[in-house]
Every structure is written in C-alpha cells, then in structure tokens.
C-alpha cells in the first residue's frame, strides 16, 4: 500500500475544504439551520410531538443526514470532476497509486468534510432544541458509514459526468427529492398507505431512519436494516468504481 500517497490525496482534498470554507462548510450549515429554525422551532411548536420527542427535535437527525449525504457526495464528485476537467487527474493516474488508494483518499476527505458539517449542525441544533443522543457511538458510526457510501457514489458521478450540467443533475433531480420524501419532516406512519409503501423503495428513507434510531432509540426501521442498506450502497459503488478504474471507462482514453 502507498499510504503516503493515500494520505496526500486525503490531505489535498481536505485542505481544499478550508480554501472554500464559505461555500463548502458555512453555506450548508446555514441552509440546514434555517430548516430547523423555521420548520422545527416556528412551525413545529404548533405540531406538538412525534412519538416521544418534540417535532423540533424529531427533524434534527433527518436534516443532519441530508447534510451528510449532499455534502459528502458533492465534495467527492466535484473534487474528482475538477481534477478531470483541468487535467490534473493524470497526477494520480501516473503515480504508483492503486484504485483503492485513490478512491479511499477521496472518500475519506469527502466523509471528513461531511462529518465536520454534521457536527456543527448538531451543536447548533443542541443550542436550539437541547437535543440529546441516545446512542452516540452508533450515530457517529452510522454517519461516517453513510458519508463514505455517498462519497463513493459521488466519485462515480464525478467520473461519469462529462460536463457541469451532468454533475449537477444527480443531486438536484434525484437526491434532493429523495431526501425530502425520505421522512426528514414526518414519520412514515403519518402517510397514506400508498405513499407508505412507495417510501419503502426510497434508499434515503433507511438512512434517515438509521440516524434517527441513533438519536432517539426509536425509528421507522431497525438500525440493522438501515446499516445493511447503507452497506449495499457502499458495496455497489465500490464495485462500479473498481470496474471504472480497471477498464479506464471515462478515466483513461
């Protein structure tokens, strides 16, 4: 293993985060905080509670999960796409680095950025709602695992995209709607049966549920099923990436 090489990719990508701190960290934090200020504290006080937690607290894990997903994905997809766009991807392709080292370096950097954002959001949420975490270790594990899975997903998108249009397509057209419909703002049993069944096909639903279990010890699906669904996404993306690097599809001519 080229550990120094892997670490260098991680370091370069993670340092990029601080170079664009406003855009990479501050802006997702602010937009997420606005959600729980408006929906949680303002509107939520009229709604009451979901299960045993107040509505303002109920939406926090879902909002954190949405931030983790979108930011780990955008960090890795834009990171690798930018390298491809300006041509510096040849620096890692011509270096003695295997696909595992390249992918791991990018994924860890994207995951770290997402976790930093998630932590900041959690701290702000704590100040607003006094929310506590029932299973902190599981929550952290689940947040890291999901961020890695979406970082890998982001890499496949970043490598596949041939222009900025395609790069923006997946997060805007697929990920954001799936997140909103994945139960950030409601429990699935509040929905009519048809929509309940449809939600079961939404992968994001399991991820939001997983983190919600970590926070409250209760959720729509069990933490085991949630973890399994994240692992499936992670493995599928890893296989696709392995294939892309093996064949050079969209990477090497």
């Amino acid at each position, binding site marked *: 293993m080229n550990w120094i090489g892997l670490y260098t990719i991680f370091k370069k990508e993670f340092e990029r985060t601080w170079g664009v701190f406003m855009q990479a960290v501050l802006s997702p934090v602010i937009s997420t905080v606005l959600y729980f200020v408006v929906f949680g504290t303002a509107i939520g006080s009229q709604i009451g509670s979901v299960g045993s937690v107040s509505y303002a607290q109920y939406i926090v894990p879902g909002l954190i999960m949405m931030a983790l997903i979108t930011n780990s994905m955008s960090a890795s997809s834009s990171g690798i796409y930018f390298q491809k766009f300006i041509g510096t991807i040849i620096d890692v392709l*011509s270096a*003695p680095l295997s696909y595992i080292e390249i992918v791991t370096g990018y994924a860890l950097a994207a995951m770290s950025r997402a976790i930093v954002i998630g932590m900041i959001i959690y701290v702000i949420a704590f100040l607003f709602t006094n929310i506590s975490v029932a299973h902190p270790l599981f929550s952290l594990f689940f947040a890291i695992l999901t961020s890695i899975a979406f970082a890998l997903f982001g890499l496949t998108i970043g490598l596949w995209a041939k222009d900025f249009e395609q790069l923006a397509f997946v997060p805007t057209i697929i990920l954001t709607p799936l997140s909103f419909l994945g139960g950030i703002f409601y429990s699935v049993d509040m929905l009519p049966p048809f929509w309940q069944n449809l939600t079961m096909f939404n992968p994001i639903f399991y991820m939001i549920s997983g983190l919600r279990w970590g926070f409250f010890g209760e959720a729509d699906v069990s933490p085991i099923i949630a973890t399994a669904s994240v692992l499936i996404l992670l493995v599928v993306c890893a296989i696709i990436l392995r294939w892309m690097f093996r064949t050079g599809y969209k990477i090497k*001519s």
Partner: protein
Amino acid sequence: MQNHIIQVNELSKVYADGSQALTNINLTINKGEIFALLGPNGAGKTTLIGIICGIVSKSSGEVLVLGKDNVIDFRFTRSQIGLVPQELSLDIFLPVIKTLEYQRGFYGHKPNAALVEEVLKALSLWDKKNTPIKELSGGMKRRVLIGKALMNEPKILFLDEPSAGVDVELRHDMWEMVRTLRDRGTTIILTTHYIEEAEEMADRIGIIDKGKIALVDDKEKLMQKLGKKTLSLQLRDPLKEIPPLLAAFDLTIDKSRPHHILYTYDAQAAHTGITALLAAIKDANLTISDLDTTTSSLEEIFVSIIENSKNS
C-alpha cells in the same frame, strides 16, 4: 539487457472511436540517453508516452520498464518515471510549492524540503514558491510541470513537447537543465516537433508517423547516413542552362540566383565527384568567383522521411 531501460514490444492502440493511434510499435530506450521522438502532429507521440506512463490504456503489446511490465508491476514502473505533460494542466489555485509537495506525496515519498528548494531554485521559481499558479506566465507554468516531474527523483524523465510556448532564452536554459539531469544519470525521452530541439539535444532519434516508427538511429549516424551536402558555386556570369560538358553531373541552377549552380553530393561517399566537377567547369570555361558548402539539417532529413512514408 541492463542497458535497456524501456522496451516497447508490438504496442498498438486503437481509441474508442476506432482511430488507430499506434500500430505495432517496437522501441528500445537505452539507459542514460536523451532520446528524441519526432513526428508531425497527431503521429502518436503523446499516445505512446501516455501508455508508458499509465494514463492511456494500451490495446495490445507490452511495455517493460527496467524489465518489468508497466501494467502488472505498475507501482515499480511508475515510481521510476517522471512525466512533463504537454498540456499545462495544473491546479491554478494552489501555490507552486504545494503543487510540488503534493506530487511527491502521491509517489509515496516523505516530504523533502531540501529537494523542493533545490528544484525550484534550478528552475528559477524559488521566489515564486508561494505564488498561486494562476498568477504565473505560461513559461513559468511549464517549469512548474518540470519541477513536479522531478519530485519523485525519477530515473526516466518524459518531456512531452517541453518547449511549446517557451521563449528562446528559456528554451536554452531548459536544454541546459535536461543535460545536467542526463549527466546525473537520468534517461530523458522528449517528444518535439521542433527539429532544432532534437538536433541540439538528442543522442538518438526516433521518427514516428501515423502511429508507426519510421526510423530509429543515432543522431550522428542519421545525419551522416541521410545527410547530403550541397556545394554552391558562384559563377562570374549567370547561366541560362547547364552546359553540355557538365551534363554528367547532378547540377541545378539556383532559380533565385542565376549566378549560382548547386551540386548535391554524399559527403560520406568514397568519391564525391568534386574534383571531376571542378575540372569539368574549367574545361567549360566557366569562372568561379566564390564557393560554399552546406550540410542538410535534420529538418530536411525529417521532411524527406515523412514524404517517403507518404509516398509508400
């Protein structure tokens, strides 16, 4: 065998769009030499380098670097190689020094501040070390690329069109630097379509055209083998046509200068025919007022080879 640092065997490349970039390339690079790969645009130079460096996939054939396959033993082969790509592809937001430090890291080497300083000084970039790359001129960016390629202390250095967009003075500095590297034992492979560059630098020259190696030879031998000399005779009186007495010689009248007749001969031949020509000129009662000889340049050799391969 130990003398061969790179061996390319029956290498072919067909791009996804079906275009054949390389056809059965066989090429050997010797340890410690400066090898110039010449060819017109689109001949396959960059593709060949790309395959050796691992950034383009081959279709068939093999590349051995120090006897090891560059796909199977990619960690070993890539660690031996530094690449200066043709495109000025750099992360424009990064300062110069970071660019070099990251590059060294990618190759699995621990940071080496002394090496970075030495390389940046040699490239006259030391005072720009903290400048973001976007603020550098084209020639400076080219030098940053060279600096990057030296960060893994490569045994083999590829320079793909190193003097594209570099001014004359800088070009000479760069040549000097390349020679210094060679003197320290680095093998250099450069592609160029500036013939002057190959003529100035190379020990051996390969000519590639339409994805095939047209010729590989020592530069000196190539110049001797193919180099013709031209004797230019300035006559006192202009000529309309070659007099019958001189018809046996391969003479032409210089169209733009009717006082001059040109005699082309092979400088290596046992009989150049110059003595006989001069005697015949005397017999034809022509008076020579001046004479001059010129050696054909690599450029002329190159053009004639490319022309031949077009005709064949």
